[in-house]
């Protein structure tokens, strides 16, 4: 039984993360995030959105996986928007960390 879910919406160039993300390794995140990576690679000039507002917890392997997405977007100069909740501690803190990797990263704190 998984306690997390990733929904990708190709037509809206959006990935939505829900639940508790405490996968056991970076490799497990590589597999889980592969649909997001595919979405990033297929995204056009309007960019790609990653909505983590319903991701209640995430371990550091997951934060590394998010950082890898940001670095990939930086390399290809793809516009990426993260939507996060200000009231969820890990989300607020992680957004600042991700912006330290890529100054042009867009973050919408709701």
């Amino acid at each position, binding site marked *: 039984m998984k306690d997390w879910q990733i929904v990708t919406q190709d037509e809206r160039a959006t990935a939505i993360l829900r639940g508790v993300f405490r996968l056991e390794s970076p490799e497990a995140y590589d597999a889980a995030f592969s649909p997001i990576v595919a979405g990033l690679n297929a995204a056009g000039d309007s960019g790609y959105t990653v909505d983590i507002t319903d991701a209640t917890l995430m371990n*550091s392997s997951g934060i590394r996986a998010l950082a890898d997405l940001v670095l990939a977007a930086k390399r290809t100069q793809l516009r990426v928007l993260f939507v996060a909740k200000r009231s969820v501690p890990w989300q607020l803190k992680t957004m600042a*960390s991700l912006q*330290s990797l890529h100054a042009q990263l867009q973050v919408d704190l709701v």
Partner: protein
Amino acid sequence: MTTRRLGPPPLPLPTALTSLVLEVPALDMVVQWRRCGVVADYVAEYLALSFEQPSYAQSVLSTVTNELVENAVRFSADKARPIRVEALHRGEVVELLVSNLAAESHILGLEALFADLARGDLTSVFRERVEARTRGGLGLLILAKDYGAVLGAMLALEQEARTQVTMQVVLPTKELSNP
């Protein structure tokens, strides 16, 4: 037994108001990784009742405890030996102590991490470690960078190049409320 400490010298800490000790075989969590989170959530829920914003406190405490438990399991050199978790609310801080038996390779990784922590600019350390894809240590770095935690590691050399590692995290309780 030879002992030493990584990190800053231990701070004098106030008397514990609330405390909890758990021991769980690492193997149980290797078999069912989600048990790391179950242990973290239990510790967090227990301590969070002491704070004005228990839901927020629980989220932070669960995040911090989970990183320590996952690390202890991942780097345990003897999966049959229990992981020991001690959580103490000491006035203005929460102290977490998590112990496991580790191999020499993990000790080398910890030494490199503490050398990086001592540099002080933790945002730069985070960026460098992510860009270099450095394995291990990111969770502990995040506890220091994002949660203002003071980290220490007590190392007690045992036989066959194995070391009992006790990670100490001292977390300011101001991190447990939404500003």
